[in-house]
């Protein structure tokens, strides 16, 4: 009978909880920090046609990321947008898997589910490599990239690769992919709040404020060029 090693047990349980708690505390502090900055007041009267407005502007702005046709930058770079989708789906699935393996392994039992997850992680890791090559190859991206940009991307590529190896969840065959995956996940959770990966904390606020301001004056959602 297979017995999970104490290291793996610790890595997939206590360590994850500690890392998650740490991340939650740092995120709470970050959000508190955001709200310490004064909110710019908007005294102007509503503009544009009645159909727009601040609420619609804010809502549309928040959903803009799922509407690539609304921006020339995403509309004209379909391949980059597809890469973005695959990469972020891979990250989201891997985060979900870090909960499923220790607490609901039954949900990942079917070979189809495991294969689908592995394909997603593999593809997402590949996209990560493509993004890294692009970052290193494009003078525009090189000029704006900090060590954190490279490290965060590298970390995610490795983590996604180990996610693909860990997805079968077969400790009895080999524990190291699982152990490495959970150790990396813990590191990821602790590192993320200090890195650019935490952009998803800022995203909803930044888009909401932009959409609200421009929606109020009637210029958002954008009127697309004819």
């Amino acid at each position, binding site marked *: 009978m297979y017995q999970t090693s104490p290291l793996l047990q610790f890595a997939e349980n206590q360590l994850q909880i500690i890392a998650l708690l740490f991340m939650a505390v740092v995120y709470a502090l970050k959000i508190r920090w*955001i*709200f310490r*900055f*004064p*909110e*710019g*007041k*908007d*005294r*102007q*009267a509503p*503009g*544009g046609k009645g159909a*727009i407005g601040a609420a619609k502007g804010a809502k549309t*702005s928040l959903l*803009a*990321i799922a509407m690539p046709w609304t*921006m*020339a*930058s*995403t509309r*004209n*770079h379909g391949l*980059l947008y597809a890469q*973005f989708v695959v990469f972020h789906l891979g990250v989201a699935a891997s985060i979900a898997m870090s909960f499923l393996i220790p607490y609901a392994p039954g949900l990942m039992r079917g070979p189809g589910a495991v294969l689908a997850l592995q394909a997603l992680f593999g593809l997402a890791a590949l996209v990560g490599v493509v993004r890294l090559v692009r970052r290193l190859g*494009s*003078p*525009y*991206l*090189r*000029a*704006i*990239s*900090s*060590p*954190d*940009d490279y490290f965060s991307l590298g970390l995610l590529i490795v983590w996604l690769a180990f996610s693909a190896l860990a997805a079968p969840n077969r400790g009895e065959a080999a524990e190291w992919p699982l152990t490495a995956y959970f150790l990396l996940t813990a590191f990821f959770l602790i590192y993320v709040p*200090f890195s*650019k990966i935490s*952009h998803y904390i*800022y*995203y909803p*606020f*930044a*888009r909401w*404020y*932009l*959409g609200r*301001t*421009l929606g109020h*004056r*009637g*210029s*958002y959602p*954008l*009127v*697309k*060029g*004819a």
Partner: protein
Amino acid sequence: MPVERSERATALIERLPQKVNRQMMLSLEACVHCGLCSDQCHYVLANPGDVTYAPAYKADRIRKLFKAHIDWSGRVAPWWVGARSVYRDEELEELKDTVFGKCTNCRRCTMNCPMGVDMATFNRMARGLLVHVGVMPDGVAHVAKDQWEIGNQMGVLPEDYLGTLTWMEQELQSEYNDPEIKIPVDKPDADVLYTINPREAKYDPRTIAEAAIIFHFAGENWTMSTEGWDMTNFGLFNGDDELGGAVSARVYDTMTRLRARKLVISECGHGFRSTRCEGPNWAKRDLSFPMESAIFTMLNYIKEGRIQVDKSRNPEPVTYHDSCNLARSCGITEEPRELLQLVCSDFREMHPNRAENFCCTGGGGAMSMTEYAPRRLQSAKIKAEQLRATGAKTVVTSCHNCVDGLFDLIRHYKLDMEVKLLVNLVAKAMVVPQAAVAEVMPTVVEVVQPVMQLAGRKILVVDDEPDVRAYLRAIFEEQGAQVVDVPDCNQAMRAIESDRPDLMTLDLIMPHKTGDKLYWDLRKDPNYANLPVVIITGYMRMEAPGIDFHRFIAEKNLPAPEGFLEKPIQPEAVLALVAGIVGKRVSLHK
């Protein structure tokens, strides 16, 4: 050894936290360096390979400061997150070059950022920081000073402004043979207070007359004002919220003083945005009166039947350039098109358009920063290609800044095109009521053939202000002259050698080399000592003590110039002077 920070750098850093609000902080934090903004900027597209034009790169110059002083990650591990402070004045100059010289705050990158990073807003914030410590292009300093001290950004004096209104009123009365046509000033309780761009009073007064005649035939109860008539606001461009608030407040106070019911803002993208959208925030005022762009006013007059228009009077192919401030920042995209469909018969869409249009390249105060003119014109390649592809003969816009930017690039790229405002087309298409026509008709007793006073003459215009060059060019060309214009003295010297003009108009205050130095060089050179020169300057002695021209020529024992005019100049005056000089003198090259 730690580097000592300069006084200006210290002041800038101390000011930084006061300028960062929540929206700005989020924009500074949210960038993921994806680079999707790069090919949305006309500077990047026109300068492929130069990464310093990329919006994210430019934004990072400011983000580095934010990280170094406000974001703790930048204080703990600056090299890891790319944080960097400023220490030397040279670094402030570099920042100035980026935020003033490589961005027009057109907001196209903002609208295309998947993260919602509002780069234009914090670029403006960075301009404000630099202005606070006295680091800015000379032109920006001059214009802001004029708006603070004289009350309008072109330094138009009250007597010149009122004189122009009277002149336009007389022109209209004479043209329509109707003494009842008025340009009311400071009329209380009017339904409309009409505010303008000082460029109209100084260089393009015909637009005031056109608006006036539209108001007249629409039967509007309207007025202009002696104070607070400038709806433009250089605070938007130089990032100075205090200037922005003071200028907006002048307009709002005039509304209150005259008890006007609605504020109508003439065609100006940044003026509309400043007065209608940003002004209440800068001035910290909650306003109760409505404000609208003249685009809406003219459109409503037509829709309500208050004026009639005949679109066949504008038969030439026309395209429309969306001003960044109107389209991207104020959502005005459809009304100008609706109006154009009513007043011209061949409207052609430009691509891309509306909120996706490219900047005219003259926005963000760029026209006042002559030192960046070469890169502005280089980046205008994108706009020139857009314009050329339409095949239109006229590009219409609804912004005076765009008029200047487009005018400059049309000349630079040799496009067969002219620039007009909507008001020009509406006035031309307007059908004058029969009663008025009947009164006008008897006065047209004979057709006078125009006399081209400058036919066959070549005139060199030397002035760093594109507006002035365009204005003088129009005056001289209308009289048959061939005009060469240049923005500085070095180019002037080359033009004198190659183009051999019959006369030169010369500004005094210009970057790199002032006009008095060029005048001295010319008078010392036997080849050009007789070239007639008309000094046209906007600076009185007390304002520019370093360039007291009269004292200068006296001390150097130089002959006086053939003419001397102070801006603002009236077309009749400059024409009479120049025609008189070239009429008397034979070109030294003939």
